[in-house]
């Protein structure tokens, strides 16, 4: 009997001793972690895409809790709703951000931009970019090898086989910016989604002089400056033979679109224009045709 008793007492004693040591150690080496970090992380979408600029949602949650002013921090995936929730948990103010969406600024389809050579190297835009300017006469345009599609974690992009260009599925795009970073030609840009997803942008990044650009691609921006002149809001600037529409200033009046002689300006999700006899081109695009 006593053997059993001694055994139980010894084990209980050892257990108690270990418990005391563990307790003391945990007190001594305690790391304070704000419980709000867990709460914030819970609220975040757990996509770990890095679109906020931090390595994953946990790191973003830590940054949110630590910062006094969180107005310049934004989760592009969650958008305003999630940021609102986070602000409630932390009792801080968030800035109202406009939802963004990725836009492919190249319309150099196989028809518009004839191939002048043939690339046979590894299927990667980065590899091709390290070698040369691409299969067409335009050394600014899309390689069409799909690095951006590889980079997208949200199934928001696919390569259109016919045009050879990436297409963005607007509903899936969370504007994390992964494709923007991946594109070696800086063709993809994050732009304001706009009311009812209506947007106007220059679908070209070619900085060559007009004649060279036009020869390489029939829908290139030739830097003629007509759009700059007609814009009533000074939203369009011309730099290095390339027009750029500032989405903060653009009021979506659509005056520039028919003005462009090469149809390089694209409008998305607008209702069709009333047909005018002298202006035949009214390229009203459906959401799927965001090229």
């Amino acid at each position: 009997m006593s053997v059993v008793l001694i055994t139980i007492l010894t084990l209980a004693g050892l257990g108690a001793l270990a418990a005391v040591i563990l307790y003391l150690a945990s007190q001594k080496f305690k790391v304070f972690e704000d419980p709000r970090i867990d709460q914030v992380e819970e609220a975040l979408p757990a996509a770990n895409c890095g679109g906020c600029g931090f390595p994953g949602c946990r790191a973003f949650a830590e940054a949110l809790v630590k910062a006094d002013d969180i107005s310049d921090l934004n989760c592009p995936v969650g958008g305003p709703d999630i940021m609102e929730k986070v602000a409630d948990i932390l009792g801080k103010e968030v800035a109202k951000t406009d939802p963004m969406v990725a836009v492919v600024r190249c319309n150099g389809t196989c028809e518009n931009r004839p191939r002048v050579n043939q690339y046979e190297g590894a299927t990667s835009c980065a590899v091709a970019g390290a070698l040369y300017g691409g299969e067409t006469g335009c050394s600014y345009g899309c390689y069409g090898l799909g690095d951006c599609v590889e980079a997208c974690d949200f199934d928001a992009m696919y390569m259109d086989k016919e045009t050879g260009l990436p297409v963005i599925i607007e509903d899936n795009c969370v504007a994390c910016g992964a494709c923007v970073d991946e594109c070696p030609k800086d063709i993809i840009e994050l732009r304001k989604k706009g009311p009812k997803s209506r947007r106007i942008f220059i679908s070209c990044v070619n900085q060559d002089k007009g004649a060279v650009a036009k020869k390489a691609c029939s829908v290139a921006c030739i830097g003629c400056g007509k759009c700059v002149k007609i814009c009533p809001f000074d939203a369009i600037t011309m730099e290095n033979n390339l027009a750029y529409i500032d989405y903060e200033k653009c009021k979506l009046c659509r005056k520039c679109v028919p003005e462009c002689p090469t149809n390089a300006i694209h409008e998305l999700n607008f209702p069709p224009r009333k047909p005018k006899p002298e202006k035949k081109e009214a390229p009203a695009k459906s959401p799927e045709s965001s090229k």
Partner: protein
Amino acid sequence: MLKTFSIGGIHPADRKLSAGKSIEMLPLPKRVAVPIAQHIGAPAKPEVKKGDLVKTGQVIAKTGGFVSANIHSPVSGKIFKLDEVVDASGYRKPSIIIDVDGDEWDENIDRSETLNTDITLSSEDIIKKVGEMGIVGMGGATFPAHVKLSPPPGKKCDILIINGVECEPFLTSDHRVMLEKGDELIVGIRILMKALKVDKAVIGIENNKPDAIQHLKKLTSQKSGIEVQPLKVQYPQGGEKQLIDAVIGRQVPSGKLPIEVGAVVHNVGTAYAIYEAVQKNKPLVERVVTVTGPGVTKPGNFLARIGTPVSQLIEAAGGLPDNTGKVVGGGPMMGKALTNLDVPVTKGSSGILILPHEEAHRKPVENCIRCSKCISACPMGLEPYLLMIESEKELLDRAEDDNIMDCIECGSCSFTCPANRPLLDYIRLGKGKVGQIIRNRN
């Protein structure tokens, strides 16, 4: 047993179709396009404007820094315009376009054929002259020659190695220079020796050029200090580090320049250009270009002015064959496919290779079978299959630890891969990215 370098190497068929063709003078083109960045380093700054009249040999763009080179007008005529032209890189590069009118040379240039063996200039003056005359490494890397002749303080050069290896299949321009301009070449080597203050020079030549070896041996027999070293045929022996290993058995440490082991390497083409620059006051305005390929009717070696469109060279070699699949600027191993035929000849253009369809295309890529052939082939002792994966998956820190920056981009790994993997494509990409990171770190 002939000497060669110690690790790696491959044996592509040498196919020197134009080896027996003597250097032909190419007629003057109607219009030349001279890129202002024909060398490694800062681009030169244009000195002329539209409408200016220039003479052959006149400076048209001044050096843009220490590691840079002057550009001289290769023709006489009128500046048509300063514009961007697609060069061998496949990108549009700023160039000076000149309409050719007659051939009037700058009066300071001695155009006589007489051999001038008296070296009157001092070491410093030679280096200055080489810089002024816009001489760059003519083996293809186009590193400004005067920079190589000025060793950094504290470093001592004790041997000059002249690269007459020409290990690239098909190319024969250096071979012809050695055969036809041997006397001038030897004077050029003596000028280089004087500039570097060394008393020993070795010309390394692969054993597939016995005539050149014999010719230069005869010329150097009575001159002390210059030696001809026949080498076993193996690619990439023309690589600077491989050649030093092959000729004098010294290994350049990782990330260091050849001067670290007391050696300076110059190409035979460069030595000949230096002879012309120092003794004849003639800047680098023309070079020997090999035009060759299996289907070419008249493969040959042509003395072409810088800026000549490639199409004219091809015309001189009998025109583009019908089943042309690819036109390569340079040799088949390290050359680059040209995107159009108006690309101008530059200081680094050693050859134009025209490949028929059946040889021009890549084979389908298969999976790596870990056969380690690429490791055996790599002359730098790297692991190409691993570097490719690391570059592809952006494991750049690991790629740096695995010495990706030591890759000389010779293409031996891609050549030897039985699964046709684009090893070099990805390694080059990774090398670029790691190089960027290292530059940002410093």
